[in-house]
């Protein structure tokens, strides 16, 4: 079955300087297991690099059913250097994760829901 990450977890994006950080909180234990399997750093990097540059580092906090993805180079130059309209586009960046689609059977990322 294909399912959107945002149907399994809530999330929030933050920034510090060049660094974009994305947090997902899964709805329950099973969902956390599924997301941990599907959203390995490599797959997430492959999808996110369509929009932001650089590597992805993943942290897991199973006790809180949270996954963290940290992208140290994603916001090169910080929010003031952005060429997107207005300020603080990165608040929306969590949808880059929430809109990914995963295969619950194989437990891997299939695609961006929008592509």
């Amino acid at each position, binding site marked *: 079955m294909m399912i959107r990450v*945002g*149907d*399994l*977890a*809530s*999330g*929030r994006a*933050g*920034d*510090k*300087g060049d*660094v974009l*950080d994305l*947090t997902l*909180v899964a*709805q329950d234990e099973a969902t956390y297991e599924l997301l941990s399997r599907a959203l390995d750093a490599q797959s997430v990097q492959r999808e*996110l690099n*369509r*929009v932001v540059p650089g590597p992805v*580092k993943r*942290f897991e*906090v199973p*006790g*809180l*059913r*949270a996954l*963290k993805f*940290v992208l140290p180079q994603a916001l090169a*130059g*910080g*929010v*003031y*250097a*952005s*060429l*997107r*309209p*207005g300020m603080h*586009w990165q*608040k*929306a*960046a969590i*949808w*880059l994760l929430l*809109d990914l689609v995963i295969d619950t059977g194989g437990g891997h990322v299939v695609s*961006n*829901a*929008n592509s």
Partner: protein
Amino acid sequence: MGAPVVCRIGAGAGFAGDRIDPAVTLAASGQVDTIALECLAERTLLPALKARAADPEAGFDPRLRRRLSPLLPVAHANRCRVVSNLGQANPRAAGRAIARLASELGCRGLRVASVIGDDVMGQREHIAWDRPVGGELIGAHAYLGAQALSQALEEGADVVVAGRVADSALFAAPALQRLDQGSEGLAGAITVGHLLECSGQLSGGNFAPVGGAMLSAEGYAWLGFPLAEVQSDGSAEIRLLDGAPGILTPETCTLQLFYEVHDPARYITPDVVLDFTGIRFEPVGHNRVRISGARGRGSPPTLKVAGFMELPGWIADCEIGFAGTGALDRARRAAETLRLRLSNRGGDDLAVDIVGVDSILRAGSAPTLAAPAEVRVHVSARCDDLEAAQTVEDEIYAMTLSGPAGGCSVRSERRSRIEVIDGYIPVERIAPQIEWSTAT
């Protein structure tokens, strides 16, 4: 749940422009003994430094009077103390301004402590920057911890005003000297501070629950800001005032716990390195959550320093709208046209996209299925000087005469190019001082 409550701290603001009324509501409730106001984003210091350079009595938050006029009388009447970093680049002058304001408001005897010592421009040779300083350094400020803020409170301050301090320290200061010995009390108090420092973002703001249900407009409009009852062992109950709109659950707490955190096992603050991996959030009622399990991993040998540079040049950020049948087609043609007109600019220095289609998430945007009634073509360009910025803006305006039909509602802004660089300074180089002012 046995450990005694050592402070009841309210979140009164999470950024310089935050709402004024939630802090007044918390102060009036009688349910908090201290309110902390976080009013200093990293970059907010830059305009403050410029203001201070122009006027030695300026350089604090220009909203000081607007924010504190409704709050101080209520806080004073309810014996609620106020801690804030709204001193920005000039906490000394801010302290004097607050005492003057308190006098005007009839808060006689109100004591204001200014915490000084974050400005480390005079110690530049001791700062280790994490990359070369590639421009003129306008200011350098170290992130102070909770110690001096706490000392000021223990010495009887009604208001403590600082400049650059760790946001979490503002909220942890009232508990600091009342915690159990050992690292866990401190770790817990700073963690609670970290949760409260973004005000409404802990209690339902910027939160999309799975399934998509949001708060009502009334809920967002009158969103309750959180408060915490911190116990001596560093655990706490975090909650909203009864009846206040919002969502405060283990889920919203977890999202905020990890917000702008990198390694969850090693979140460095001036007072203690925090390990969040053992934290537990337990729902204990409607919009009430108990937190426990924060661990401390020693105190860091250095303090983080934020250095500010203004790079030469500007970013021109402009838009032109298209509406009516065929709006998207005309906008796309205008975008192509603008790319041709601006093709002398490198790809890294120019963005042309369509607001309503792909200007924010770019290649990660959902496809446009229905023809939008209106859209806007957006152009941002890095420009070496004001004349270059003007040239880009003129090209957008020229679309109204020489581009696809109906280009309208043109808007443009220019941003200076600010760069913030991180550095580190040995803790022993920093000796915060306290200066007092009293309302007469």
